[in-house]
C-alpha cells in the first residue's frame, strides 16, 4: 500500500468533514480492457476510507445562496491506463498509454445537492482550492490529475406534479468552464428530449455522454465491451488499513488554515471586502502568504490587496499562474509606503513597479532609473507661479468655478518636470490663485 497516498487521502477526508472508519480495505474490480494490465482495478467497494462529509460553497456575487454540498464517499483506487480510439475513416485503431496505470487516485463522490451549472462549477473550484491547499494534488485538469464526471437530470414541475428526467453521466470535460457549459447544454437537451419522448427516470438505462468542446454539445458514447458484473472481492494482496482515533485526530489537527477560514480572517483582521478576500484566497496559498507579508509590512491591507489584484495578477496572467513572483513582499510594501507618504504619485508608482519587476530591483533603484527625484515644495511653488503667469485664461476659468481647467496645468507641469506630484501641483495652483485673489 502506498502509505503517502493513504495519508493524503485521509487529509482530504478530514478537510471534507468526512467520517473516517477505523478499518478500510481494498477490493478488486474485475473487467477486461486493454488499458487495465492486471485485468482488475484495485479500488474500494463497500468499505471506503471516508463517508458522509460536506463542502461549503458560496458566491460573493450572490447568484446562489450559501450551501453545503454533501460528500457521499471518498475512496482511494489505482488509475487505469489511457485508451485513445481513432475511428476516423473507418479505421479501428486503438492506442494505449499505460504510463499512469497504477498511480493512486482519490475518487470523491458528491451528493446531488447542486442545483445549477454555476453551483457545480463553484463546488469544483472550491474543492480544487481545498485540495491544493492541502497538498493532496496539483489538480491540473489538462494533465489529468483532476478529472470530473458529472451526473445530471432535471426535476420538471408539471400539472401532475414533479417528474425527473433520466440521469446522464457527462464525461470528457477538460476545464471547469467546460463542465459548466456541458451541464447547461445537457439541461437544455434533457428538457427538449423529455418534451419529445416523455421518458422519465428509470424508464431508460443510464446514458453516458461525452462533451465535445469544439461543437459545444454532448454526444452519446459507445459503451465498453464489458459485462457489468465486476465480481468485486477483497484484494488478497493488500491488508486492510487500520486508522486509530488518535491518528484521525492528528490528521484533523494538522490540516493548517483552510480556504474558508482564511477568507474570514482576511475580512476580520485585514478589513478586506468579502469579494477581495475571495479573489486572494482563490489564488492559492502562495499568493495569500505574499499578501499577508505585504499587508503586515506596509500597514495598508487595502492597498496591498489592490496592488496584488491589479498589478501582480496581471503579471501572473501573462507569465503563467505558477511563475515565480516577480517582486519580494518587502519591496512591494516599500512602494506602497512611498505612495502613502506622498513621495510618489500612483501613476509613477506603477511605472516604478513595472521597472522593479522587469529589472528585479528595489524602490530606490527603480526611482533612480526612471529619473524620479522628489521635488521640493519650493520648486513646485515656483513652477506653479510660472504656469499661472503663462496661462491667465486658465486662472480666469478657475476663478469662474471651472476647477477642471486646472488639469491642463498639471499636464504642463509634468511636461516640464515629470517628477512633480500632480496632487501637489493642483493644491499649490489653487492656493496661489486664491491668494492672488485675496
Amino acid at each position: 500500500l502506498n502509505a503517502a497516498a493513504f495519508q493524503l487521502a485521509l487529509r482530504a477526508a478530514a478537510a471534507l468533514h468526512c467520517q473516517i472508519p477505523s478499518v478500510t480495505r481494498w477490493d478488486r474490480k474485475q473487467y477486461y480492457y486493454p488499458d487495465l494490465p492486471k485485468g482488475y482495478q484495485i479500488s474500494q467497494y463497500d468499505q471506503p476510507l471516508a463517508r458522509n462529509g460536506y463542502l461549503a460553497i458560496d458566491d460573493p456575487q450572490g447568484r446562489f445562496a450559501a450551501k453545503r454540498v454533501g460528500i457521499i464517499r471518498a475512496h482511494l483506487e489505482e488509475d487505469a491506463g489511457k485508451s485513445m480510439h481513432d475511428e476516423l475513416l473507418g479505421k479501428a485503431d486503438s492506442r494505449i498509454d499505460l504510463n499512469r496505470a497504477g498511480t493512486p487516485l482519490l475518487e470523491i463522490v458528491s451528493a446531488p445537492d447542486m442545483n445549477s451549472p454555476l453551483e457545480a462549477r463553484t463546488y469544483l473550484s472550491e474543492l480544487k482550492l481545498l485540495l491544493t491547499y492541502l497538498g493532496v494534488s496539483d489538480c491540473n485538469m489538462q494533465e489529468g490529475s483532476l478529472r470530473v464526471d458529472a451526473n445530471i437530470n432535471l426535476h420538471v414541475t408539471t400539472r401532475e406534479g414533479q417528474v425527473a428526467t433520466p440521469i446522464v453521466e457527462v464525461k470528457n470535460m477538460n476545464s471547469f468552464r467546460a463542465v459548466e457549459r456541458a451541464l447547461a447544454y445537457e439541461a437544455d437537451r434533457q428538457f427538449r428530449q423529455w418534451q419529445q419522448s416523455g421518458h422519465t427516470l428509470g424508464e431508460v438505462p443510464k446514458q453516458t455522454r461525452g462533451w465535445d468542446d469544439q461543437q459545444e454539445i454532448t454526444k452519446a458514447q459507445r459503451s465498453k465491451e464489458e459485462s457489468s458484473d465486476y465480481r468485486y472481492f477483497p484484494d488478497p494482496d493488500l491488508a486492510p488499513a487500520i486508522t486509530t482515533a488518535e491518528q484521525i485526530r492528528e490528521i484533523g489537527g494538522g490540516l493548517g488554515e483552510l480556504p474558508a477560514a482564511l477568507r474570514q480572517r482576511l475580512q476580520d483582521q485585514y478589513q478586506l471586502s468579502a469579494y477581495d478576500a475571495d479573489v486572494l484566497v482563490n489564488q492559492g496559498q502562495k499568493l495569500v502568504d505574499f499578501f499577508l507579508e505585504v499587508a503586515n509590512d506596509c500597514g495598508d491591507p487595502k492597498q496591498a490587496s489592490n496592488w496584488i489584484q491589479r498589478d501582480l495578477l496581471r503579471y501572473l496572467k501573462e507569465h503563467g499562474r505558477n511563475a515565480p513572483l516577480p517582486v519580494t513582499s518587502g519591496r512591494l510594501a516599500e512602494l506602497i509606503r512611498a505612495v502613502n507618504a506622498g513621495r510618489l504619485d500612483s501613476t509613477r508608482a506603477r511605472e516604478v513597479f513595472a521597472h522593479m519587476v522587469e529589472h528585479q530591483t528595489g524602490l530606490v533603484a527603480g526611482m533612480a532609473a526612471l529619473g524620479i527625484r522628489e521635488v521640493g515644495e519650493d520648486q513646485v511653488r515656483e513652477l506653479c507661479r510660472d504656469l499661472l503667469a503663462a496661462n491667465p485664461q486658465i486662472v480666469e476659468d478657475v476663478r469662474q468655478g471651472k476647477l477642471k481647467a486646472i488639469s491642463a496645468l498639471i499636464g504642463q507641469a509634468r511636461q516640464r518636470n515629470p517628477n512633480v506630484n500632480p496632487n501637489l501641483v493642483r493644491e499649490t495652483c489653487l492656493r496661489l490663485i486664491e491668494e492672488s485673489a485675496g
Partner: protein
Amino acid sequence: VNLLDHSATELLRLLASRDVTAVELCHACLVQIEQHDAAIGAFIRVDRVGALQMAEAIDHRRAVGYPVGRLAGLPVAVKDILCARGGPTTCGSRMLEDFISPYDATVVERLKEADAILIGKTNLDEFAMGSSTETSAFGITRNPWNLACVPGGSSGGSAACVASRMVPLAIGTDTGGSIRQPAACCGVVGLKPTYGRVSRYGLVAFASSLDQAGPLARTVEDTALLLEVLAGHDSRDSTSACAEVPPYATTVRQPLDRLRLGIIREHFAEGLEREVEAAVREAMRVFESLGAECIDVSLPHSKYGIATYYIIAPSEASSNLARYDGAHYGYRTDQTAMMKELLDERRGALEAGMGLDGPLVRMYCRSRSEGFGAEVKRRIMLGTYALSAGYYDAYYLKASKVRRLIRQDYEAAFTQVDLVAGPVMPTAAFRIGERTGDPLAMYLGDLYTVTTNLAGVAGLSLPCGLTAEGLPIGLHLQARPFDEERLLRAAYMYQQATDWHTRSPSS
C-alpha cells in the same frame, strides 16, 4: 560416501574447509542431472554455464579470503514460478513460455545475496495448480523412487531433484500442500512457512492469500538453514510479516523438553491407507520415546477444508490470472488466423442475422483458450462462477466464514498442544495418469494439507517410512503462526532418532 549424499550443512563445511570447491560440487550436480533427469524430468531449464560461472566466482572469493554468504557455493534449484531476472519464468504454462522476467523475486534475491548457485528452474503443475506435476505444458516429472509414479505436486520438480541427489536444496511454493505433498511423495523434508514469513514478491500469484514459498531439503537441519536465508520482512509485499527471524540453523539442534504433540483425530479417519497410518502412528511412538506427550486433538471443521479451499483458491486464481489476456505480455493468438476466422464467421453471422464479438474479445478468448491448460481453465471457471453476482454470498463469502472457523480450530488446538501431527496425504505417491481423469480424487489428496494454508499456520513434511512397494511416507507436523523454530526442533529430534531421511531412491 558419494559427495552428493552429503547434506547441505555438511557440504557447506566441506566448502568452507576447501576440501571441495564450489566448481567441483556444481559439476557433480550437473553430471547427476545429466544422468538422471532425462528419465525424471525435474528441471524445465538448467543453467550450466551460469551455475559454473557463479561457482567459479565463489571459489575465487574464498581463495582470496573475501567474505562469502550463508549458502556460498551450494547449488539450489528454484521452482519455475519464482521470477529470476533475465531468464524465462514459465509457470509450466504455454502462456508464459516466452516470458523473460525483468526482476528477481525476493526469494531469488536472498539466495543470490547468500551466494547460492542458481542451477536451474524446476517443473511444476501449470501455475502450481495440481498435486502431481502432470499438468505442466513442458512434460511430466516422475517420482525418483518409482518412475511409474507421480512425484506429487505442484512442486514435484523441486522435490524430485532433491530426492535424486541432483541438488542439496530446492525452493517450492505451497498454496494447498504443494511443498509438503511432493516432499512426502519423494521422501524429503518440505516446509510451508507461516503465511507472511517469506516474501511473495516475484512469486507468480496463484491464490494470493494462501501462497507461500519455502524450502525443500533432505534433512531438517538443511531446511532450517534455507528458511533462515529466505525468511524476513519485505516492504514490497504488503502481506509480509514484520516478525523477527530466529537463527533457525542454530536453534534447530536444541531438543524440546516435554513437547506436547496433538494427534489430529480427523486425519486418521476413513480413506487413510493402512500402511500410511501405521508409519505415522509409529512416528508418534518415536516422539513419545523422546519424552513427548501425545494428546488427541480435534480440528472439527477439517471436513470442510477441501470445499472451502476449492472456492477460495480458484476465486483468487480467476482474478490473478486475468492479466494473461494476450494484450500486454505472454501468449497471444495468431492474429492473421484470428482475423480470417472472424471474417469467415461474419459472413455466416450476417446471413443468420446473429451478432458477433469483435476482434478484442476474440483475441482475449483465443489467447486464453490456447495458452492455458485444462486444469487452469477449470479453476478459472470455478472461481469466476464463485465470485459472480448472485453467487458471491453463497460461495466466496460463505467459504471466507468457514475459513475463519478453520483458523479458530487451530487456535483452540494450540491452547492444548505445541504442535499438531498427522499424515501428509492419505496414500503414498499414486501412478502417473491414475487421477488425471478424476479431478475430485486428485483434489481429495490435499485433504490434510489445505487447512494449513487456510489457517495461515506453518506445516512441515518429513519422511517417516516406506510402503511395502518402496514408496516414501510423509509425517505432517504443524505449528502456530511464526513458530517454525519449534516445528524444526521437533522434526530434528525425530530425524536424530530415525534414519528414514538417509534412505535414497537408489539404495
